Structure formats: C-alpha cells, structure tokens
C-alpha cells in the first residue's frame, strides 16, 4: 500500500502494468475479485481481453499529450511536448491551437453522444404522447408537472397529455433551436447564468453548438485557444444542461423517478441454472422492454421447457445503472467487466445498444458461444448479430433476444464458472428523493444538507463519476479515492461505472458510514443513508447539476455553483463523453479532477487556461492526478478553500433569536 500511495508521476499509469513479464498479472489489473477470477480464466482459456491489449499496446505518447494534429493533409503534424513552443504545424498552428482543437472535438463527440441519446428519448416521448407508441406510457405524471413548471409551462387545470405535448415542444428546442437559450437555463442559479452570459457561453441549441464546434475546429478556422475554449464550454453545457438533462428527465417521466432500492451488484448475480441475459449500454428503452419480455409467461415457460429455472436479467454499464436505480435489477459489473463476464460462459445473450460497447466483446462472446446482439441502428459490430430495436414495436426485438438466449442455454457447451460474489447496496437517489429524504413529505428540502455543511459536520460534496480504464488498476482508484473523501467528511455522489466500483466495495450501504469521518457518519446515521449516494447512469450526472442548483437555492452556501464547497472527479475515465461531462462541470463552476491521463501538454497556455484561467473567469477548473489519495486531498483542499471563502471554516455560533430578530425575518 505504501508503494501505491506514493505520488505517481503524470502518465506513469499508462505504463504501470509490468512490461517485463509476458502477460499482465490479473491481481494487479483489478481489485474486483470477480473480474480477477475471470481474467485468470481468460488467461487459462487463451482468450484475449482489453486488459491484454492495454498491456501489449503502449498508449501513443504524442496523442496522450495532444501534440499532434491530423485535421488536414498538409500534416499530420506533430510537435514536441518537451519543447511545446519550439515549432508549429505546417499551417502555422501552435501547440495551444492543436490542444484546444483536439479537446474541443472530444467535447463535441461526447456531447453528441449524450444529446443524441437524449434526443432519442425525446423522440420516444413524442410518439408516446401522440399515442403512436403504446408499449410505454407516462409513468410519473408528478415529475412531468414539476419539470414542466421548472421551465415555465402552465400546468394548472391541464391534462397530462396537454402538458406533455407542450413539454415536448419546449424541450425539442434543446436540440434544434438556433438562437436564444436552451430551456433548462431556467434552472441554473442566477449568478452562474450571469457569468455564462457575460462570457457568451449560454448554449443556443446543441445541434448548433456541436455543428459550430466542428466547423471552428476545421483547418484554418478558429485558431485562438481561448475562443475555441469558449465554444467547447458552450457545447459541453448543451450536453449537461441540455441533452443529458433531457435524457434523465424524460426517462424519469416515462419510466419513473428512482427512489432508493436495495439491490445486488457483481457477477454473482448470474445464475447457472437460469437463462442469463445481460443488457449493456446506455438507453433505458431496450432494457425496459427486455424486462417485459423476460417476464412474459410464454417465454418463461419456454425457458423452463429448455431446462432452466427461469430467465435471469442483469444489467451492465449505464443502462444497467438506470435499471438498478429504478427497479433494483441486479447489475453484473461496470465497463471493464463486460468482456470478463462473458468468460463465465454463463451469459446466454448480451444485448447492447450504444456507447462504450467494446468491439472486443464480439470475439470473446464467440469463444464461449454467447450471443452478442447489437440492437441500435447507430451501433453495428462486425461479427455480432443485429436485431434492430424499433420503439413502435419494441418487443419484437427483445422477444427474439430472449428466444435465442433460451436456445443457447439449451445448447450450452462452454463450462460455466460464475464468481460467487454479490454485493448488496442502496441505489436510486434521485434529486427528488434527496429532497424527501431530508425532510419527509412536509418539510422536503435541501436545507438540512446545507445546514450540516455550514456547521461543518459535512465538509463538502464530491461527485465521483466516470468510466473504468485498463490503464490503471480497475476500480482501485475509485474506491480508494472515495474512501479517503468520506474519511474526511466529504459526502460523495456517484453515477455510472464509478458507482458500481463502490457498490462492489460495499460503500453504498448504510453500514459503510463507519468508514466516514465522525461528522459525516453522524449525518448518515441521522438520515439513514450511506456515505456514498448512487444517482444512476452517466447521463444522470445531470442529477448532480440539479442537486447543486438546489443546494445553491437552499441558501447559506453562496450564490453560484462555483461558490459551493464541492468538487468533481473521474478517476478512471476513458471516453470522450467523460471529457464533455468534465467540461460541463467545470463550466458550471465545479473543480474537476481527472485521473489516468490528461490530453494536454505541460507548460502551455492552453493547459493553464483549463487548470487556472477558467476559475479566474468565474467558472470551475480542471486538475489532474493519478494517485487516488492525492486526488482526494486536492479535492479536499479546494473544498476547504471554498469553505473559507464562505466564512464557514470556523465553528458556527449558536444564534439565539429575540423578538426583534424575528421581526426582521423575511
């Protein structure tokens, strides 16, 4: 541990796995016991996974520094990260332009992924409201009303259908609007919005922002890193407060707003004697319908006829996290367990939709005779069977997946080995539930949270999110960092794969409060909550934005999100979506630290803009560290800085109210 704790040099992690040996050591590759067991089996079975490939292939060092540009055929040009201003590209572009454009395109791609997901949800919503799609309906009219009210839609004396149609039309602007501000800007704390307006980064519509971003990063257009940065902030905001937020809110309206459930995670959720179906991806539609199919009596009967005890449905990755939150459907593992789980041989079918679907899954599935089905027209994989999921007749796809899974169960040839590990935890903390949790039906409010931040029992709030990555020890950075945070009284909010890392480590249970500092533990005990709250999938990071706005609104902690004693982190990130998320957190005012690697060159103006300049503009800022403890303490230092700015770094006085004091109350 002492060695692990040592502060690692930047990008040290990239080459961390032992090169001297021919193969990597699974014990060093992950702290997830189930994954380790499967990786060991993969080595025995001679099956290759991302862990092998990461071990074999060094990350491109020039790419890692963002020091190359391939935006035109005068190049590709590469600059020397050790001497960043020593030369420029053929067109004359500087290292700052290189980095800014590369970064901008990562943001654009990540934002596009979230907004396209959100737009698909909105398409479904429209068809449901119109009555064209009959398999889904509006399950949460209360949420419908509250979302509508939050953006100024009249709800009094109106039918659900009328409100829903207005909401659809209004939210469509998130994507298609060409001028003005996207609808959810109405939810942004006033002071934060004021800063954005001053900087000219209020998003107009995500299509427009992404399009403009791509245009500006074309050869010979925007060649001032500061100007590029403004547009990628705007693009990222159109994701967090636009596409992602729409995805979350529409999913809640259609499928229900999560409230806490106790549910299991890890590979032990697979059942040897049942037909195992895994849904992996990001959009809840496929998964929701799959849930209907696996409960279809005819299909269950057919599974039994095939000799199974029934059909067992598990999730992975983000749609898994959504189903875990909404319905308590077991979750079998995060991004870096998707190949290993196929090695169990117990997976009869894995159905995927979009995002974070490794192409490598196809070959691993083949090795064990498991089905891998792609279902979304956006995502086909060579070597995987495609059964298109059509929302107007969703069961056609999912029934077929189930039928094929049953057939595979019947003809299982691979030896089944399921790691017998399951971890219980409490999941499903929506913004709405957090409010309820802190005051019940009658006093629902964020105030008790603020009050305990002000009085110092809770030091601050951290959002710990993001992917897992084979370039670092799987789950380890997440778990160690979060443990360090809660030990220091920082309440941790989680989404996505990070939430699953911590759930596997048992930190999403109320009993985990014993690992927290005294103050946080006391609050956890009072509320009956775990010290680590799971909010759902990665698009549900928008819940963190809404929670942050609610904390600002509850008062006593400043006027903008940037004033809050809060920090964000993605310790094992890997995707462009993570960069977009990170950027929208930074633009929203949150100090955000990433691990693994960071696509910038040291000692450049661009890096300085991300790591300091943005904060000077009234936004948040980026930071980077590999070591989980160092990351945690950097976050804590930032939280302490904000506490001191708010004047809550000292013990609070007990104010006793006289009649005169009462008279001056608002």
């Amino acid at each position: 541990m002492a060695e692990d704790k040592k502060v690692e040099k930047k990008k040290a992690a990239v080459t961390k796995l032992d090169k001297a040996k021919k193969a990597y050591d699974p014990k060093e590759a992950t702290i997830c016991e189930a994954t380790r067991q499967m990786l060991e089996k993969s080595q025995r079975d001679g099956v290759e996974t991302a862990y092998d490939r990461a071990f074999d292939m060094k990350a491109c060092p020039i790419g890692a520094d963002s020091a190359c540009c391939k935006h035109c055929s005068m190049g590709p040009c590469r600059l020397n990260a050790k001497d960043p201003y020593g030369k420029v590209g053929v067109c004359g572009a500087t290292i700052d332009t290189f980095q800014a454009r590369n970064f901008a395109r990562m943001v654009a791609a990540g934002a596009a992924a979230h907004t396209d997901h959100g737009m698909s949800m909105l398409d479904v919503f429209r068809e449901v409201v119109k009555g064209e799609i009959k398999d889904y309906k509006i399950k949460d009219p209360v949420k419908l009303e509250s979302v509508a009210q939050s953006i100024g839609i009249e709800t009094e004396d109106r039918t659900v259908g009328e409100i829903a149609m207005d909401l659809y039309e209004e939210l469509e602007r998130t994507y298609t609007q060409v001028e003005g501000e996207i609808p959810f800007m109405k939810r942004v704390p006033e002071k934060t919005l004021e800063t954005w307006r001053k900087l000219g980064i209020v998003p107009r519509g995500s299509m427009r922002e992404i399009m403009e971003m791509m245009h500006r990063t074309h050869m010979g257009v925007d060649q001032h890193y500061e100007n590029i940065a403004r547009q990628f902030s705007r693009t990222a905001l159109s994701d967090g407060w636009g596409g992602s937020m729409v995805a979350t809110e529409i999913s809640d309206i259609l499928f229900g707003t999560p409230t806490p459930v106790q549910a299991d995670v890890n590979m032990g959720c697979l059942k040897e004697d049942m037909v195992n179906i895994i849904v992996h991806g990001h959009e809840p539609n496929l998964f929701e319908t799959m849930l209907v199919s696996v409960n279809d009596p005819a299909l269950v009967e057919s599974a039994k006829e095939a000799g199974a005890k029934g059909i067992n449905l598990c999730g992975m990755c983000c749609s898994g996290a959504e189903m875990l939150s909404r319905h308590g459907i077991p979750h079998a593992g995060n991004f870096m367990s998707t190949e290993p789980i196929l090695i169990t041989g117990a997976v009869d079918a894995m159905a995927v939709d979009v995002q974070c679907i490794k192409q490598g899954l196809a070959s691993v599935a083949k090795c064990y005779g498991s089905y891998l089905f792609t279902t979304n027209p956006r995502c086909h994989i060579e070597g995987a069977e495609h059964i298109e999921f059509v929302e107007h007749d969703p069961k056609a796809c999912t029934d077929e997946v189930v039928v094929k899974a049953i057939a595979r169960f019947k003809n299982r040839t691979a030896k089944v080995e399921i790691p017998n590990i399951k971890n219980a935890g409490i999941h499903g903390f929506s913004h709405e539930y957090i409010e309820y949790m802190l005051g019940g039906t009658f006093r629902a409010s964020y105030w008790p949270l603020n009050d305990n931040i002000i009085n110092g029992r809770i030091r601050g709030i951290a959002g710990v999110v993001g992917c897992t990555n084979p370039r670092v020890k799987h789950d380890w950075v997440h778990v160690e960092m979060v443990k360090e945070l809660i030990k220091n009284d920082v309440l941790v909010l989680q989404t996505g794969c990070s939430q699953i890392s911590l759930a596997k480590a048992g930190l999403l249970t109320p009993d985990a409060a014993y690992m927290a500092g005294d103050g946080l533990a006391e609050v956890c005990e009072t509320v009956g909550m775990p010290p680590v709250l799971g909010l759902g999938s990665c698009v549900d990071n928008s819940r963190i934005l809404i929670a942050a706005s609610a904390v600002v609104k509850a008062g006593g902690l400043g006027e903008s999100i940037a004033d809050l004693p809060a920090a964000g982190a993605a310790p094992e990130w890997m995707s462009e979506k993570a960069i977009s998320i990170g950027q929208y957190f930074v633009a929203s005012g949150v100090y955000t630290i990433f691990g693994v690697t960071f696509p910038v060159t040291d000692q450049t103006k661009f890096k300085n803009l991300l790591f300091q300049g943005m904060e000077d503009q009234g936004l948040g800022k980026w930071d980077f560290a590999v070591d989980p403890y160092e990351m945690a303490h950097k976050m804590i230092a930032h939280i302490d800085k904000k506490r001191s700015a708010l004047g809550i770094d000292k013990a609070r006085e007990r104010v006793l109210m006289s009649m005169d004091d009462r008279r001056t109350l608002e």
Partner: protein
Amino acid sequence: MSRLVAFAAIQGGYNVVSKVEGEYQQALETFEAGTKVGFPNTAYYLPVIYSLTGIKIETLEDMQKPLDFAKKLLPPHIKGKNHLPYLGSLLDAGMATLFAFELQEALKILKNPDVYLPSAEEIDEDSGKVWMGPADDVIMRKRGVEFVDGSAPGFAAIVGAAPDAETAKALVEDYQRKNLYIFLAANQNGTTVAEQLLEADVQIGWNTRIVPFGREISSAIFALGFANRAAMAFGGIEPGDYKRILKYNKDRIFAFVNALGDVNAEWAGAAAGCVNWGFPTIADTDIPEILPTGVCTYEHVVANVPHNEMSQRSIEIRGLKVQVTEIDIPCAFGPAYEGERIRKADLHSQMGGGKTQCTELVKMADMNDIEDGKVEIVGPNIGDIKEGDTLPLGIYVQIAGREFQDDFEPILERQIHHLVNYIQGVMHIGQRDISWVRVGKPAVEKGFTLKDIGVVLHAKMHQDFGKILDKVQVTLYTKQKDVDELTKRARAEYKQRDERVENMRDEDVETYYSCTLCQSFAPNHVCTVSPERTGLCGAYNWMDCKASFEINPTGPNQPIEKGECLDKDLGQWKGVNEFIYNASKGGIDHYNFYSIVFDPMTTCGCCECVAAVLPSCNGVMTVNRDYQGETPCGMTFTTLAGTIGGGASTPGFVGHSKFNITQRKFIRGDGPKDKEEGGLLRMVWMPKMLKEEIKDRVDSRAKELGIPDFLDRVADETVGTTEAEVMEFLKKKKHPALDMDPIMGS
C-alpha cells in the same frame, strides 16, 4: 442512534393509526355518519389537519379522508440490514401519528362533549375538571396576541411527569420566569405534571400560562393546533399551504417538547411529528439522540438533561433568546403571574377596590428634585397590619429625564397595572383612582412589603423606558390624608390629560406612525396609527407610537410624514401611500383611514374588532373578538378575522380597535353627507357585551351628534343575528342609517 428513534416512531405511528382507525369504526357503529364532530368554537375545524391539508372535518364521515391520508403516510418498517434512508419516513410517521391523535381527540369529544374546558381560562378544580383541551378561538386569539407582541416568546410542551411535585414545580416556574407558556399533556404511569403542580399548590390555567391539555399523549396535539391556528390567524397563511405553515412555526413560534419519564413508541411518534414543526424534544431519560441540525434549527432530540438545566438547555436548543427580569424583591416576577388570582382564602390584605381609596399617578419632575431609586413609604406598611386588614394607597411616581415629556406620563402610568401584577402573589386591578391591590399570604410569608412595588416600578421603568428617562422616584402613601390629597391632585391631572387626548385631531399633526410590532407574527401587515385612528389591536395609540419611537428610533414604530392630503373625507395621504407601498413591497399602494367601503386600511389577525357592511340595513356592524356567537353578516368573529386578516385591504370589511368606534373619524367617509364626523351613525349592530363596555363613550359621542339615545337604536344579538331581524328593529327604532344615502351606492 436515530435508527432506534425511527424504528420506535414508525412503530408508534402504526400503533396509533390502527388504534384510532378502530375507534373510528366503533364510532361509526354508534353514531350516524353525518354526526357533527370538531373542537368547540373554532373556525379552524381540526386545526392541524385543516392547516396542513386543507381538509375541513365537520362530520364523522369527513374523518375518513384524513385517516386514509395518515395511513398512506406510514412508511415501510425499517429493515435490520441495508435499510433504506429513514429520516423522511420518520417525519412522515410522526405526522401520521399526529393526524391520528387529532382525530382521536375529536372522537373523544364526540363521545363525551364535556371532557374538556375549551372556553375556560382556568381549571375547575372543585369539580375535578383539570383538563382544558382545545382552547377555543377566543382564547387562541387573546393568547396568540401575546406571542405576536413578544410578551410570550414561545411555549414548552411538557409531556409525562416529573419524578416528584417539587421538581415539576421548579421546572414550570423556570419557564414562567422566562415568560413562556407551558402546555401539559400525557401521563407517566398515571402521574401528570398538572396534578403534581396542584399538589405543590401552583395555580394552573391560561392565566398563569400553565395549560393542562389532557391526561393522554394524544392531547399534545392541542399545542400544535394552537401553533397552527396562530400561523393562520396572525401569519395570514392559507390552510393547506403546509410548507409555509411549518416554516412559520420553525421561524417564529419558539416551541419545544420536554419529555419527562420513559419514552414509549407513541411518544416517539409524537416527537417525530413535532420535528416537522421545527420543535425539538429534550428528555430527562437516556433515549437515543439526534444531534445533527437542519429540520429543526439546532438539535432534534437531546437526552439525559438534568431537571435543573432543562429550561436553559431547552431554549438554547430551540435557539431562543429570553430576557429574564431579575428584580430584587422576595417574590418571583414576570408576565406569567399577570393573570394569577388572589383567592379569598389566600388574601392577606388589600388596598382600594371600594374598601379604601387607591390612586396612582405618574408625574414628570425636575432632574434635581428627585433621587433615582428612592422608594419611600409614608405611613404603615404590610408588616404593620394584620391579616384581613385594608389600607388606603397612593402610588406616586416621579420621573425625570432629558428626553422625557409630559405626554409620556399616562403611558408610564399605564405600566403600573401589569408591572404590579407581574409580582407573584400580588394582584392589581383597575387604574388611576379606581385601582385595587390584593396581596396574598404566600407573598407576605416570603417577605413582600409595599416597598417592593416601588422597587419593581423603578427597575422596570428603567429597563423598558431607559431611553427617555433618567431618574425614577416612588412614594407610597398609606395615610388617609396623604392619599386623599394625592387623589384630588390626580383627578385634576386625569381631566386635563383626557381633554388633551380628546382634542387631539388628525389635522393637528403632520406625522403619523407606522406599527410593525406584530411583524414577528404577521409579516405582511403594516398598521398606520394616527391620533384619531388607534392601532387595530387596541394596544397602541398615536402617543404610544410616538413614545416608542423616541425609545427605539429603529424599532417597530416609525414616523410617517403624512404629506399632501389626497382625500379629506376618506382619509388618504400621499406620504402614507408611499410608505405602505414600500413597506408592503409594492403589494398595496394606497388605503383610506376613514372608510370601510372604499379601499379600507389593511387588517391583521390581531384586531380587536372587525366591522362589516350590512348592505340591506344600509349600515355596518362590528364584532369584538370576545364574542363567539353568530353575527348578521353570517360570520363569527374568528371566521371574519380569518378571512380578511391576511394583511389585505378588503372593501366592505375592516379591522379596528374598540376605542376607535367612538373616535370622531371612525368611518366618517361612509357616514351621512350632512355630518362631518358621523360615521358612528352607520353602526346598526354590535354584540351586547361590546355595547355595555363602551356605553359611556358612545353616549357622549351620540350626544355630540344630536342623537343621545343612539345606542338604544343599535341592535345586538338579543334582537337577532340576521339582517332581516336587524332591519325590522332598525325600522322600529328609526335608526338614522335608514335615512342615509345607500352605503354601497354611487
């Protein structure tokens, strides 16, 4: 361990709700579904349920809805391992418990209508009736005003029983000294604090601020019903707006629970419910604590507090600042003793009250002529007389100060009544030359002498009026000759003062005063007080406001330059309009001082009377808050005050003081065209008790207006409470209003 509290409270919630459901089913078998249920003399139905949900319970069958609601609120039980968060559940279970308690109490009253004394100020010890139950609206409004003006900063709800009577007495007296009300409920193995206090010879009842609600824990609901009615009556919050009702309680009603003795699941449910109000529980036993803050202002549950620290800890935990007046006299002192009686059996001696002359006079003196703090007794003192004796008494207070004016003399003189009353064991009745002081045996046993009256007056006048006075000297005369002399001199002074006040006109002054004294409770309301329109609460006239401003220049009474007169008859001024526009944050841009029909002045829940137009009688009626019955406008006082009391201007209705009825400008804008100041002649109906109370002043005004027998032409409830009955009477009596232009006309 909040988890244990949550576990117990949720259990308690289930127990109570299912028990009450059973009682309800039983009641449905005994009574018709349409049988009337409710608490006596209130416009707020079952007030906790009404205020938080808007549900009006009038009949037995109406109870089904809130009962179902309570059942729905009951959360799942807490699992042993990997439980879900329980704070929200705990609060909901508490609320379900309280809803059930309120229903249970209503059922209790249905079965036994005489179980409580809801309209009484005192217990009926002789017939063994100790439990007062749900105070009716008259008591709620009267006592509520004390919360409004700050003379009662909050209440302690004590449940259970102390280990012994002495401890109970000490604790309760601690709270009395801190001016809090003490609400008592529940028993501990059959023993109650109320009975312990009786055993220790402590007077209990509203008059001494010690209110025994009931023997069962369910009666604790009356404390919350009182608080929520205050929020509606004084805070102007709409029933059903639960968020604001509860926030009002958290911010403005400084209440808390003291749990004495073992806490069972039902108590835990009730305590959890109280947390919704921001009312914490402080216990003397070792129960699990909930210390993190947030729903309450500070801690939620604090345990193991020793009895001698309980009152101090409780007010700190609630975040309340209380000023305790320490005065060097042998008896306890404070507003809690103001309503205390000296019964015949306890009487040691008395001054005034028809037996002897008792007179009081405050006069301004020259700085060099008096000695601050000097209290002189001229004549025999208490020690010189026997039990049952009487003495004449002259209380002569001389005041000097650079800021002092003779206008302030009557204001300070009026303090004598309550200040003397604040002494435990001493009672003061009346004022001026009809005062009456009764001294109880226990006070004399403690060493009380007449000198202590002087000590109290000196100390309190410095404390409350230090800004305008520098020296106070008190002389107490007990020789007949001296008292007669003082009385003669005082009567001349009174006459002169009365004339001065009588002749003070709105036209004579350029400055009116705002009054936001009640904004601690009624945040929307701003009164404007002019010489001829005293505050609608009856407590503040123009001179009081003036003095108050001198004493505290940034306080609740601010001068308003009335500015250009916009309407002489209706009473509207530019400067006043500008002031109220700002003070109401743009909500109200003008009102009239002298009209009920045209944009009348705003009204808050503290008003003494509410007047209403009776269109078919071509006049107005008014009703005072002590009158509980129906009125010709179809509403009782409490309904009227509840309807218009939210700080709004409501044409056709206006709140006013009793005194204002006989002030010349009273609704003069609505009076007869041919008389400048004849608004009073529109008055067609008043409760009999009010007529009797203000008869002398009405008669003298009526004489001025040329109709000396006017009051006889005004109807009251003995005539009728419908417009038709009143009209018939008016015709018979030839009431002048019938000949006037239509009141709502043109």
